[in-house]
């Protein structure tokens, strides 16, 4: 068994040893825990033996995208419009995902479609694409047992089609949650138009994986120097869910705001403070949209680690939200191997062993216990 002290000292002194050593540190941690797990769980051994590296795998990646061939074929140009110059995503194949996961000790990744999602202005197409995407991910899950989960695509802003796909996703495919975009046809996801969908998701106590896109009205701003349209749509989405009352009205939702670490602290400080909530600015009582306080609503939200930084980790700690962070990679976005790069960066942060373990596995397991 590893000693926690040794692991912390390694983690807290980045630069003292090579990155490989940090990974080895995680490997040690994983091996130790796995030793315990193996005593009573044969499934772990089975999964382990299918790994190329035979390395123990413990990490869970909640932010992992699929790029189905039919989706690229039909909408390559739309993807490039939202993410100019990002072409490595078109080389994605399921085997690549598995290879990267194995190489970095990732046990399971929850699959989702990235921006711009399945909606391109036509109901029939939105419904068909959502179904194809979800069936594709389900097939991948079947091919690699235990390695993948699914945040299902739904064709919002078509609420009727979305309700049907939610039913199919949960009741037939046994999806782990639903993937949403931050806006649809320029409407922030918290707009009242989408209330029926959130009410249904709340009824099902669903996990909702919220992913950034660029509002269609702002596509013309992409690529200008200092372009922050993704962050801006993150802000709109979070703010609309908060001040539109969705968060308070749907307390059973488990919302994962991918990349949300960069906007949630700002909203906590400036909307909470300026909007009369219990923000740090000293407010004038709780607003109607958050009867238990703005921070109460925000602190329920989960975020992931894809593309994050020590600064945002510090912000999350200051907000008392270290147990709301889950490992995420944004793979195949975010560089040549986003799984490895995000893991390396995480290893460099100033974190305690408990925090690291919660981020890499523990918090995800609370939401997704079947991956234990």
């Amino acid at each position, binding site marked *: 068994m590893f000693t926690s002290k040794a692991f912390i000292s390694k983690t807290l002194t980045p630069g003292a040893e090579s990155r490989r050593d940090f990974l080895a540190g995680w490997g040690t941690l994983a091996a130790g825990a796995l030793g315990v797990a193996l005593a009573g769980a044969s499934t772990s051994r089975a999964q382990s033996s299918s790994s190329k590296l035979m390395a123990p795998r413990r990490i869970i990646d909640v932010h992992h995208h699929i790029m189905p061939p039919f989706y690229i074929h039909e909408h390559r140009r739309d993807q490039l419009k939202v993410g100019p110059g990002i072409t490595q995503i078109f080389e994605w194949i399921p085997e690549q995902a598995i290879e990267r996961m194995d190489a970095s000790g990732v046990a399971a990744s929850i699959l989702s479609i990235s921006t711009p999602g399945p909606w391109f202005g036509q109901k029939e197409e939105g419904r068909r694409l959502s179904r194809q995407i979800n069936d594709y991910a389900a097939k991948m899950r079947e091919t690699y047992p235990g390695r993948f989960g699914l945040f299902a695509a739904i064709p919002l802003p078509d609420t009727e089609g979305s309700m049907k796909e939610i039913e199919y996703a949960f009741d037939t495919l046994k999806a782990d949650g639903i993937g949403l975009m931050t806006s649809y046809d*320029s*409407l*922030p996801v*918290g*707009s009242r138009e989408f209330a029926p969908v959130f009410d249904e998701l709340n009824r099902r106590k669903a996990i909702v994986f919220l992913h950034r896109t660029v*509002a269609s*009205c*702002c596509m*013309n*701003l992409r690529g*200008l*120097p*200092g372009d*922050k349209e993704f*962050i*801006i749509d993150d*802000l*709109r989405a979070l*703010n*609309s869910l*908060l*001040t*539109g009352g969705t968060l308070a009205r749907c307390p059973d939702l488990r919302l994962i705001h991918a990349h949300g670490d*960069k906007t949630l602290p*700002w909203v906590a*400080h*400036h909307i909470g*403070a*300026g909007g009369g909530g219990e*923000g*740090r*600015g*000293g407010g004038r009582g709780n607003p109607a949209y958050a009867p238990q306080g703005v921070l109460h609503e925000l602190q329920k939200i989960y975020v992931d680690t894809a593309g994050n*930084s*020590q*600064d945002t980790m*510090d912000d999350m700690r200051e907000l008392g939200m270290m147990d709301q962070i889950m490992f995420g990679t944004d793979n195949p976005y975010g560089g040549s191997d986003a799984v490895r790069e995000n893991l390396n960066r995480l290893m460099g942060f100033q974190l305690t062993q408990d925090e690291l373990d919660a981020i890499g596995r523990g918090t995800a397991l609370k939401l997704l216990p079947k991956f234990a």
Partner: protein
Amino acid sequence: MLSRRQILGGLTALGAGALLRGDLTAQSPPAQTRRVIDVHHHIVPPQFMAAHRDDMVRGGAGQPYVQAWTPQVTLEQMDAQGVATSILSLSTPGTWFGSVQDGRKMSRIVNEYAAQLGRDHTGRFGLFAAIPVPDIDGTLKEIEYAFDVLKADGVGIMTSYDTIPTGDKTFWPVFEELNRRKAVVFMHRTAATCCLGLRQDPANQEFIVDDLRALNGFLVGGTLAKFPDVKLIHSHGDKVMAWVAKLNGAPINGPQRGPNPPWAPDGIQAQLRKVYVDSAGNNKFSMIELRALGMLATRVMFGTDVPWGNVKNNLDALRERMGCSREEIEAVEYKTARQLFPKYNV
């Protein structure tokens, strides 16, 4: 029918109101002790409102109390709270509505109106002149007129024009001229035209969003570094300053990540620290962030956003609820503005 008692009661209430106003006037600081300088104070010239009432309403800036603004509203508030000088500007959406001719005409009308107010009330009003960006030629002409004829204190610009953030190089010819004149540039939020549809949403943050775009564009697009003699006042910028620093890898709670980029040769925070912000409608957390950025004592000036905001509310908030020291409050109320506008140091 109203009874005699009701009429008398009504009169009494009216009388009390008048008395109250009298008391306020009696308590307000006499002229020689007025020292507050309000750098964020809007006018709503009647000719402008008559021509663009619908545009104002559509942009979320046409509230009834805005339509009812008169110079008297402004002067009463200033007198009651000890404001020596307010520097006047136009608020969103500015003077650009897609027509070159109208933009030039409206800018001139607004500027002449403000200049006349200044002549009518000596020392009480300054001017951030309206300019018809994105019409570059018209803008350069109005800059010349505003500074050379009207002796304006600066120019007022919006955070974006026809959806293009104002720091974008499209507008560099204007900044070349403003830099040559070492001009004060008062930047005010608007909603980007592409996003006006979102203004109708109850949770809309399009003003903040455009503030973020504008400041980040000024920084990362290199406009701040390229035009070092422009003195940019980003009104309401207090809410996005620390965020922009952090989004670019220079958090207030730690060292900058990475080397100094070409658009911030002396460091990201150092580049941002050249920008001034105002105190209109800000919150305690903004003040904490501005203090951490080293800006509170030298880069924050008092602002009210009249007629959207109110002089007393903003002054009370600054003095009582922002957690500022006496020195910091004095810097915000008038000292920093006197540095930037020496002519109001009287």
